[in-house]
C-alpha cells in the first residue's frame, strides 16, 4: 500500500502539478507585495478578496464558470496547436470570426426551431473558426508561409472583416455593436442560473461550461488515444521522421490548424451566446480572449485536461480581482499576478526536475528525465516554422 502511494508521488503528473503550484505560490506572493507597496492598510483585505472572491457567493461561483468558458476554449486551441508543433497566435482572429458566425445565425436564422437554433449557431462558429485556422495552415503547406506571421495577419483581417460584416448585417447603430441574438439562440442555463445566484441576481453560468469540459475531454482522447492524434503529435515532434514513416505531414498541419481554429471559434460563440448582454462591439481592437488563451495553455503545459483547470483558475483570479476593486485597487494587479505565475511556470521543467530528483533519491526510477519534454518545435517557440 505504501509503495503505491510513493509511486503516485513519483508520477510525472504529480511533479508537473507541484511545479505549477509552486509557480502559483510565487505569483500570489508577489501580488501581495504589490498590494502592500501601493496601499499597505488595505492590502490584507484586498488580498483575501483575490483569494476568496471566486467562492464568496454563489453568484461569483457562477461567474467563474462563465468567465472560464471562453478561456478554456482558446486555451485548448493554443494548447492543441502547441502539441502538434504549431504556435497558434491567431486564436484572436479565429475567436472573433466564430463569434460573428454565431451572432449572425443567432440574429438572422430565426426560422430554426428551439434548441436547433443555438446548436446551429455553435456549429457555424466552429466552421468559421476552422476556416480562419485553415488559411494559415494551407499557406504553410502550399507556400511555406511562416504560421506565426500569417496568424498575426489573420487576426487583423478577422477583426476588420467582422467589423465590416457586423455593420452591414446585424448592426445596432445606436450602441455601435451587433444586435442581440434571438431568445432561442441564447445558450440554455441547464438550471445553473438557479444554483449559482444571490437571491434576485443570477450569474451568467450556462451550458457553455459543460461544452468546454466536453471539448477538453474530447481533445484529450484524440491526442492520447487515437492514431490520428498520435500522427498529429508526431509531426510536432519531428516532421522529417514523420514523413519518413509515411505519414501525410502536410495534411496533419492543415488538420491541426483547422481543429485549433474550430476550438477558438466555438469559444467565441459560447461567450457571445451566453445571454449576458455582451455583443460584438465595432472597435479596432483585437479580441483579447484569443491572446489570453496562450497563458492558459502554457500554464497547463498544453495538456487539455490541465487547460480545464488553468482556465478555471485564471477565471477565479479574475473574479477575485473584481471583488478586490472594493478595496480601491486596480484590477490590473490580477494580470500582474497571472503574468508572474506564467513567468515562473516557464521554469516548471526545472522545478519539476528538482522535485523528481528529490523524490527519486534512494529510488531506482530512471528514464523519466525526458518524459514530458515539449516537442522540439515548441522548445523553439515555433517562431521559425
Amino acid at each position, binding site marked *: 500500500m505504501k509503495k503505491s502511494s510513493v509511486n503516485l508521488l513519483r508520477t510525472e503528473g504529480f511533479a508537473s502539478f507541484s511545479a505549477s503550484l509552486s509557480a502559483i505560490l510565487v505569483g500570489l506572493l508577489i501580488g501581495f507585495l*504589490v498590494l502592500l507597496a*501601493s496601499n499597505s492598510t488595505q492590502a490584507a483585505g484586498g488580498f483575501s478578496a483575490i483569494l476568496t472572491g471566486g467562492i464568496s457567493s454563489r453568484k461569483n461561483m457562477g461567474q467563474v464558470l462563465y468567465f472560464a468558458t471562453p478561456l478554456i476554449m482558446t486555451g485548448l486551441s493554443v494548447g492543441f496547436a502547441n502539441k502538434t508543433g504549431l*504556435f497558434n*497566435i491567431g486564436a484572436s482572429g479565429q475567436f472573433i470570426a466564430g463569434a460573428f458566425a454565431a451572432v449572425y445565425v443567432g440574429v438572422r436564422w430565426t426560422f430554426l426551431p428551439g434548441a436547433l437554433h443555438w446548436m446551429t449557431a455553435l456549429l457555424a462558429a466552429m466552421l468559421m473558426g476552422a476556416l480562419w485556422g485553415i488559411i494559415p495552415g494551407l*499557406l504553410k503547406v*502550399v*507556400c*511555406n*508561409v*511562416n504560421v*506565426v*506571421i*500569417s496568424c*498575426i*495577419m*489573420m*487576426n*487583423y*483581417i478577422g477583426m*476588420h*472583416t467582422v*467589423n*465590416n460584416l457586423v*455593420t*452591414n448585417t446585424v448592426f445596432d447603430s445606436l450602441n455601435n455593436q451587433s444586435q442581440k441574438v434571438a431568445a432561442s439562440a441564447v445558450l440554455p442555463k441547464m438550471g445553473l442560473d438557479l444554483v449559482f445566484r444571490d437571491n434576485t441576481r443570477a450569474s451568467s453560468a450556462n451550458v457553455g461550461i459543460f461544452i468546454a469540459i466536453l471539448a477538453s475531454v474530447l481533445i484529450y482522447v484524440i491526442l492520447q488515444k487515437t492514431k490520428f492524434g498520435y500522427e498529429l503529435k508526431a509531426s510536432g515532434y519531428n516532421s522529417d521522421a514523420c514523413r519518413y514513416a509515411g505519414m501525410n505531414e502536410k495534411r496533419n498541419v492543415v488538420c491541426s490548424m483547422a481543429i485549433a481554429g474550430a476550438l477558438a471559434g466555438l469559444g467565441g460563440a459560447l461567450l457571445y451566446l451566453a445571454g449576458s448582454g455582451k455583443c460584438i462591439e465595432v472597435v*479596432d481592437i*483585437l479580441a483579447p480572449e484569443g*491572446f489570453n488563451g*496562450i*497563458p492558459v495553455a*502554457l500554464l497547463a503545459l498544453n495538456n487539455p485536461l490541465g487547460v480545464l483547470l488553468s482556465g478555471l483558475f485564471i477565471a477565479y483570479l479574475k473574479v477575485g480581482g473584481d471583488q478586490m476593486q472594493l478595496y480601491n485597487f*486596480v484590477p*490590473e*494587479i*490580477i*494580470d*500582474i499576478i*497571472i*503574468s*508572474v505565475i*506564467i*513567468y515562473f*511556470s*516557464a*521554469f516548471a*521543467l*526545472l522545478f519539476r526536475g528538482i522535485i523528481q530528483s528529490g523524490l527519486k533519491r534512494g529510488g531506482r526510477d530512471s528514464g523519466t528525465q525526458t518524459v514530458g519534454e*515539449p516537442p*522540439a518545435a*515548441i*522548445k*523553439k*517557440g*515555433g*517562431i*521559425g516554422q
Partner: protein
Amino acid sequence: MNLMYFLVQQMMFFSIPLLIVALGGMFSERSGVNNIALEGIMVLGAFAGILFINIFQERLPGQPVLLLALLVAAATGIVVSLVHAYAAINMKANQSISGTAINMFAPAFAIYVARVVRQVQQIPFANQFRINKVPVLGDIPILGNLLFTNTYLTTYLGFLILLAAWIVLYKTKFGLRLRACGEHPQAADSVGVNVYRMRYAGVMISGALAGIGGLIYVIPTSTTFYATVSGYGFLALAVLIFGQWKPSRVLIAAFFFGLMKTIASAYSGIPVLSTLGISNDVYKMIPYIATLIVLTFTSGSSQSPKAAGVPYDKGAR
C-alpha cells in the same frame, strides 16, 4: 506631388518604429533567442519614456527632452529584456512562455503605476518634437520635401540604427560571433565564444531597440499614452520574419508595410481611392492582406537562424 510628400511623411511614422523594433528582434533571434516579448517591451519602454516627458516637458526644451526620453526608454527596455534573457538563457525555459508573461505584465504594470503615480490611467504629453523644416536640407528640391519637412528627429535615428545594425552584424567580430551563436552554438563554443554572453548581448540590444521603438511609435500618433502600442510588437515580429532576419530586407518589409498602412489610413485624401466607394474596413485590411500575398510568393525558402529558440546546453551532444 504634395500628395506623395504627404504619403512618405506619414509612412515614416508607421515604418520607423517597425524598422527599429524588428532590427531589435533580429539581434535577439540571430543570437539564438526568440523574443515574442517585443510587444511588452515596447509598452514599458514607451511608458517610461512618456512618463519622463510628462514630468520634464515644462522644465527642458523640446528636442533634449526627446533624446533623454529615448535613453530612458532604451534603459527600461534593457531591464525588461534581462528578465526574458534570464529565463531563456540561464534557466533554459520555454521562450514563448516568458515572452507571453512579459506581454501580459507590461500593460498591467503600466496602468498600475500610472494609477499610483497620477491617479488616472492615461498619461498626457505635449508633442513639441515635430520639426517643420530642417534648416538647409529642407530646401533641397523633392528630397527636402520628402525627408526633411514635417518630420521627427526619430526618423533619422531609425536610419542611423539601421546602418549601425548592418555594420555591427556583418562587419564586426561581435556580429560574426553573434550570428554563429544563432546558427550553431556548439561550434561557436568550441572556438572559445561565450554563447551565454553573446545571447545576453543579443537580447539586451533587442530590449533597448524595442523600448526606443515603443516611444517612437507613440509620439507622432497620439497625445496620451494608454498602456498600448496597438500590436506593433507583433507586427514587428512579422516584419522581421518577412525580412528574413536580414537588415536590408527588414527595411524593405517595414517600408512596404508602412506604405500599405498609410494608404489604408489616408485613403480619403487620395483622389483616386476616395471615389471608389469601398468601405473603410476594407482599406484597413489592405496592409495585412498585401503582406500575406507578398509572403505567398516570397516564402519559398525560409532563412531563420537555425538555433533560434533552442536553449543552449553546454552538455548536450
